[in-house]
């Protein structure tokens, strides 16, 4: 108990300092100019920061009457930013616009009445015709659209090491699941220890969803997330069994791997295939690995499993007109080009000029125009954050015990608990 005096004085000093700084920041935001547009993101470095900078440059020309204020919160793949955002929304101090995964992840904000309907702006800016109809359907909640996507990524891409495939006599990636299993058997017989590289829970969920798309088809798969398809059906059981079989071809230490560790198995030639989102192209290019191939996951055919970052107009934003100008720029062809050429994703608009983009993106853009968009749960376009957490946990369990019945039950329970919230 000796510490108390000095420690107490020090603690009291800190408390006073904290109180003072709180007052300071309070009065600071009060004196903000009405020309400012505070854009809240977790894009603080790398390709994401470069993309944001490109977008800001476009914003400065299109909306020269407004000032861009960077409200980026770094760290934790957005988890830090989400905590900060939640407390600001609760206090009724929203930024002028914030980043969120497009689709179901917005449900919480919509239910809380924290973001505005942008349907009329979509018509006014011509976005309803510039974006593919499937995407518009996915973005629409009860007839209203609440966000403008800045970019599109594809989740269901199968990456391969061309040399490993060639050594096993495989000339082209599989196009159906049975063919894929045959190829994996061939690879195994040729001495490839890990035909398919997999990482921990959320990467397993991505693989499982790709199998679901193959077994159920695009429409029934989308139905799983909006309540039109049952999770307890025999077709889902079949998909879980197929998925279990796939895991049998994967690395046993998958739960210790992040997606980049699995990617390294492919780069080192220890694995032949890996399912991952198309941010892998930019990553492989950065790491200087040229010997990679890509194709849509076998059996996914014309399903484009998308995920997107988007921006919204919060209720009570101080500068709503400024935010609208930001959103308009974001949705415009010039804005999407400025952002996506730097970030390594593709524009949501179908009228973009693919010549501006690197090879992988050109192929993806061609597919985006004609394919059926389907959402993804681990990346927020299909389900809310709570649902994501429950599903990732269930996948982690399945990876360790392979209990088909328990997984199906858990997925059904998660759907029941989170679907209508």
């Amino acid at each position, binding site marked *: 108990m000796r510490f*108390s005096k000095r420690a107490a004085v020090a*603690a009291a000093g800190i408390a006073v300092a904290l109180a003072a700084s709180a007052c300071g920041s309070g009065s600071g935001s009060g004196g903000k100019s009405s020309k400012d547009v505070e854009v809240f993101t977790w894009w603080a470095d790398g390709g994401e920061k470069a993309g944001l900078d490109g977008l800001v440059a476009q914003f400065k020309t299109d909306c020269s009457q407004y000032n861009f204020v960077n409200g980026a919160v770094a760290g934790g793949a957005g988890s830090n930013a989400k905590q900060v955002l939640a407390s600001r929304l*609760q206090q009724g101090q929203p930024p002028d616009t914030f980043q969120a995964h497009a689709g179901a992840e917005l449900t919480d904000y919509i239910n809380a009445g924290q973001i505005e309907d942008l349907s009329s702006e979509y018509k006014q800016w011509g976005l309803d015709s510039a974006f593919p109809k499937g995407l518009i359907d996915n973005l629409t909640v009860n007839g209203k659209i609440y966000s403008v996507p800045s970019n599109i990524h594809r989740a269901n891409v199968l990456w391969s090491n061309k040399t490993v495939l060639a050594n096993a006599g495989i000339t082209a990636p599989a196009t159906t699941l049975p063919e894929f299993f045959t190829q994996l058997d061939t690879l195994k017989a040729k001495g490839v220890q890990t035909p398919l590289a997999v990482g921990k829970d959320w990467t397993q969920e991505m693989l499982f969803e790709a199998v679901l798309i193959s077994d159920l088809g695009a429409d029934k798969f989308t139905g799983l997330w909006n309540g039109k398809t049952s999770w307890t059906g025999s077709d889902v059981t079949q998909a879980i069994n197929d998925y279990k079989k796939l895991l049998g071809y994967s690395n046993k230490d998958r739960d*210790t791997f992040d997606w980049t560790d699995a990617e390294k198995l492919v780069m080192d030639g220890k694995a032949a295939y890996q399912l991952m989102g198309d941010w892998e192209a930019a990553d492989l290019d950065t790491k200087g690995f040229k010997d990679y191939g890509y194709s849509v996951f076998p059996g996914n055919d014309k399903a484009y499993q998308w995920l997107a970052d988007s921006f919204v107009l919060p209720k009570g934003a101080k500068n709503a007109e400024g935010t609208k100008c930001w959103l308009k720029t974001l949705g415009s062809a010039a804005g999407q080009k400025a952002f996506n050429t730097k970030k390594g994703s593709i524009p949501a608009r179908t009228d973009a000029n693919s010549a501006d983009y690197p090879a992988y993106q050109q192929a993806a853009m061609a597919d985006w125009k004609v394919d059926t968009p389907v959402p993804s749960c681990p990346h927020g376009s299909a389900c*809310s954050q709570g649902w994501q957490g429950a599903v990732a946990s269930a996948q982690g369990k399945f990876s*360790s015990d392979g209990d088909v019945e328990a997984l199906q039950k858990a997925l059904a*329970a998660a759907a029941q608990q989170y679907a209508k919230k």
Partner: protein
Amino acid sequence: MTTSSATVAPERAPRRRRGGSAHGKARHWGPGLLLLSPSLVLLAVFVYGLIGWTMKLSVSDQHNALPSQGFVGLKNFTALFTDDINDRFVHSLKNLLIFTVVFMVGALVMGVLWALLLERGIPGEGVFRAIYLFPMAVSFVASGVVWRWLMNSGTGDQAGGLNRIFADLHLGFLENPWWTDPHWGMAAMAVPAIWQLAGYVMALFLAGFRGIPAELREAAQMDGATTYRLYRHVLFPQLTPTALSVLIILGHMSMKMFDLIMSVSGAQWITEVPAVYVWQTLLTSDYAKAAAISIVLLLLVAIVIVPYLIYNNRVERRS
């Protein structure tokens, strides 16, 4: 503390008498209270106030970013045990139990063993003491990262870390999946914790041994006690308070274990304990559920700590 108690003791008697002037009393404890008050206020707000706030949250239905809809009683608590998908919470408790048992037994056995060896007076005692105690200076996060590599679960050609060493020593049968084992993985997770804290246990027991008067040993030896009987009936019984402190310290550390697990495995099903589950739940904005788990965790720690505090108070009053 010890010097002041001698001077305070005589004052106690007059203070107990009723009718001393209020002014005099205030002068007696006023300055002390004044000095303590900032820390008391801070404790009241930031510890007890926030515990209260967490309790309030744990009986509300704030399961998302929406404002709370109201009071739901103990529903969040019963749901943890009966309605959690895959019995996730019970699973995390089971993991915690395995971890705690292996960690405490392991650290205790190793610590007592080392203390016994050093206590017997082997040459270079100081060096060994430093070596054993040193791991405690490393943070769980730093050692967790190293143990993550050591306990690489790959086997055969893909083996790394300890499995690689086993393979190179032709001890391949010792290669194992470490923490990725679905049933006993948490036992492997306890290994780094044992490595870090066994030295600390050793130091506590060594201090305990050194605190036993030499006369007792000599008397026992004079009476012809064997070494075993000397330890069994003379020395160990005197170490009960030490052992109790060790159990409490290790026990509450174990129950709140978070950083080690996050750096070895990250947050995932196989190694999930309640502290990690709280974190996962918070990330999905399920505030009420996270608060309920936190309260359960607090109660678990309280079960360990409170009897110890009561016991300690009694011992202090007696002396």
